[in-house]
């Protein structure tokens, strides 16, 4: 058995290894095609990306991606495709920033309050898609994509007409009023001039909580059962409508935290400079991370590092968009390699079970004789 277990573990290792090898191979071809030297490009990326300040920046970039990946992954676990994480987090960040600026609270409570507003907003926005699915049978992919557009428009309207900081003099900045210092999170450390944002710690706790929820609770069991075999889950007593509602609310609630690291650690207000597209990138991160919090963390770090390290390419005269190809190929090859390896692993498991069964039968016959 231990031999089989080792073989299975090695097979699983094939997934990330083959994905990364393939991703860099295809990116190299793209680089060669535009007349750049892939070795030079990757080695300058490696030396720039390994600088301490780059590693800190990588983590800072990875944290929102990780949270976004978790929000998407929890839906994926039951085959619920929350494509609306993007809209959910952008509205949530806006409301959280505006609410955070409007109240005066002692430091830890202020942080908790802002996070709660974000989670409630994200969950509320996600609940629209959930209700449409449960009551009217609207597929969540369609409704969440449309709700993303609505969220963008609604956010822009609210920001410029209701939540915008009153202009001082000739200032043109479109932003919510600043959150008081009690609603800031101090840097965890400053390395090579880069601040390591302390929302990292909250994200780690969140990752552990999501892991516990999916793999240790009854709710998580029902969630996974619904994803693996919805008919069997239903026959076992899982109410599919309630499951959709709850999962969508949790996913939207987590999505509401995506912008918090930037809000607490850098911007302290909702501005047009806040990063966008994190919700969509979260889908990629969840796919590459195979919907497991540890995998999502690794994928978020990989994507964060590629973002940071690719900044150097512009200085070398290479378009850093090449890295988009690297990311795309990584996603595709992980998904394909995962399916292939899954089949190989299952064949191993079937073989092991058949062998063990034969031994058991021989033993039973010996006892009977």
């Amino acid at each position: 058995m231990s031999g089989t277990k080792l073989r299975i573990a090695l097979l699983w290792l094939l997934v990330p290894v083959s994905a990364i090898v393939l991703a860099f191979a295809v990116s190299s071809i793209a680089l060669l095609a535009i007349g750049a030297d892939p070795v030079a490009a990757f080695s300058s990326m490696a030396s720039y990306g390994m600088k301490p300040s780059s590693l800190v920046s990588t983590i800072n970039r990875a944290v929102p991606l990780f949270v976004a990946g978790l929000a998407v992954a929890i839906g994926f676990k039951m085959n619920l495709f929350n494509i609306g994480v993007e809209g959910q987090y952008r509205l949530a960040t806006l409301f959280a920033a505006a609410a955070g600026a409007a109240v005066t609270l002692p430091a830890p409570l202020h942080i908790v309050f802002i996070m709660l507003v974000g989670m409630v907003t994200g969950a509320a926005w996600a609940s629209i898609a959930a209700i449409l699915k449960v009551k009217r049978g609207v597929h969540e992919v369609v409704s969440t994509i449309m709700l993303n557009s609505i969220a963008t428009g609604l956010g822009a309207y609210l920001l410029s007409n209701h939540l915008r900081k009153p202009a001082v003099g000739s200032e043109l900045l479109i932003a919510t009023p600043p959150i008081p210092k009690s609603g800031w999170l101090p840097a965890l450390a400053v390395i090579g001039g880069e601040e390591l944002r302390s929302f990292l710690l909250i994200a780690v706790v969140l990752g552990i909580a999501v892991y516990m929820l999916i793999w240790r609770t009854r709710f998580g069991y029902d969630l996974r059962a619904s994803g693996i075999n919805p008919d069997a889950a239903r026959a076992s007593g899982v109410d599919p409508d309630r499951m959709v509602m709850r999962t969508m609310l949790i996913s939207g609630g987590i999505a509401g935290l995506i912008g918090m690291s930037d809000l607490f650690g850098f911007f302290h207000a909702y501005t047009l400079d806040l990063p966008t597209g994190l919700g969509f990138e979260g889908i990629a991160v969840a796919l590459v991370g195979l919907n497991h919090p540890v995998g999502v963390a690794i994928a978020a770090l990989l994507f964060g590092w590629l973002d940071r390290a690719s900044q150097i390419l512009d200085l070398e005269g290479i378009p850093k968009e090449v890295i988009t190809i690297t990311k795309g190929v990584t996603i595709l090859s992980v998904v394909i390699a995962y399916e292939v390896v899954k089949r190989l692993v299952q064949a191993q498991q079937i073989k092991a079970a058949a062998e063990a069964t034969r031994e058991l039968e021989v033993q039973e016959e010996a006892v009977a004789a």
Partner: protein
Amino acid sequence: MVERAAAVELKGITKTFPGVIANDDVNLTVRRGEIHAVVGENGAGKSTLMKILYGMLRPDSGSISVDGSEVHFRTPKDAIASGIGMVHQHFMLATNFTVLENVVLGSEPSHAGVIDLGAARERIRELSESYGAALDPDRLTEDLAVGERQRVEIVKVLYRGAQILILDEPTAVLVPQEVEELFRHLRELKAQGVTIIFISHKLDEVLEIADSITVIRAGRTVTTVDPADVTARQLAELMVGSELPTPETRESTVTDEVVLSVRGLGVLVGERWALKDATFDIHKGEIVGIAGVEGNGQRELVEALMGLRKPDAGTISLAGTDVTQWPTRQRRENGIGYIPEDRQGRGLLLPSPLWENTMLGHQTLYPFSRGPWVNKRGAREQTEHLISEYHVMTPGPDTPALALSGGNQQKLIVGREMTAWPKLLIAAQPTRGIDVGAQAAVWEQIREARAAGLALLLISADLEELIGLSDTLYVILRGSLVAKLDPATVTPQELGSYMTGAQEAASA
């Protein structure tokens, strides 16, 4: 009898799948123009052998000869070109097509790219009438009865020029009267020189129709016999290699305590009552059997009882409490167990470990969970206990369910429902597709649970199982319970005529 050239000769066929030897040096010789039965238990390797002959699988070793010359099939197309056709157990028909469209599907006759159905229509009439089974080419397939659909499948194969016909368990879906009709058609086809390979595990039928019988056991050919020389019992013993179990229950354990009381239960599917005014009781210690051709409302009945479908009329009471509006989980928690008809589709999480499968349906109860948390240790212990008590052949509770054979998967499902000590167990096809050994074990467990006071609703296509196990037997036809019969006196023949509506409602 004059020795004629062999239509099909399989020599030394071996085929292995990961961990399983499906065929081990199998030999089979089928003479031209005979009906040759291949019998064996489920899992004996009959289907694999036929898939090899039909080009769906390639053997690891061995040779296939058709009419004396060796062939190498890579796809069913090659087999069809050699005049071999197969009628699958599960029909492969598009129900929204007419008979004609289904028959030509995949080999449409055309003139300059335009489908020409006129000639095909005539050919279908000719073919079907030539063996005494008239088929209207323009009828919609969904309007046809099961027996007629099977005829469409046979015509479809003949239309493609098959001279060697493989029928995989053709009687599994038919009631006795339809079987008689099928046999008439097969004899007619034989008279026209068609060679028929007939796969079955129903021995009476095989003895009736076959000219020779090859027995397969555990992937090997045991022997080929002349049906005149063997009895059904001898044949069965050749198949199993040991003595046979029977499904009979012994003395009655029925009490007068009502566990399930169903009154006027109805389910609408669209405009039609798929289940209509169903009224019956199940007592403590009683097994109530439901006989019926598939698709006559059994599914709707089970789903309404499990809370998977809201009934449109009537009430369901469990031990005196009205549970009609209860969700599935509440019914489960209050002692309704469920063995679904489709064990992989509804009963298992295939990629998940066995301990997670043991929990399924009982995940809110001790020892599987504690408050909101899954109790992995409790679930694993319960699974280990179940593995040993129900003889599930597996390395352990962490093996994924997909690694188990069908019989062992079924033993796990039966075990998990039984060990939860339900008040009421709804068992749909509990022994379908499992081998004789596992079947006997399931029957024994049902009997023991009945003696311990279980109320059981048994829905089965196996008439002997229904007659042997049930204390009370109902026949369901077009959504209605049309007859209540005494299993002690009813014969499978009588049951069959009630199931098709040939015999109208009466009470025993």
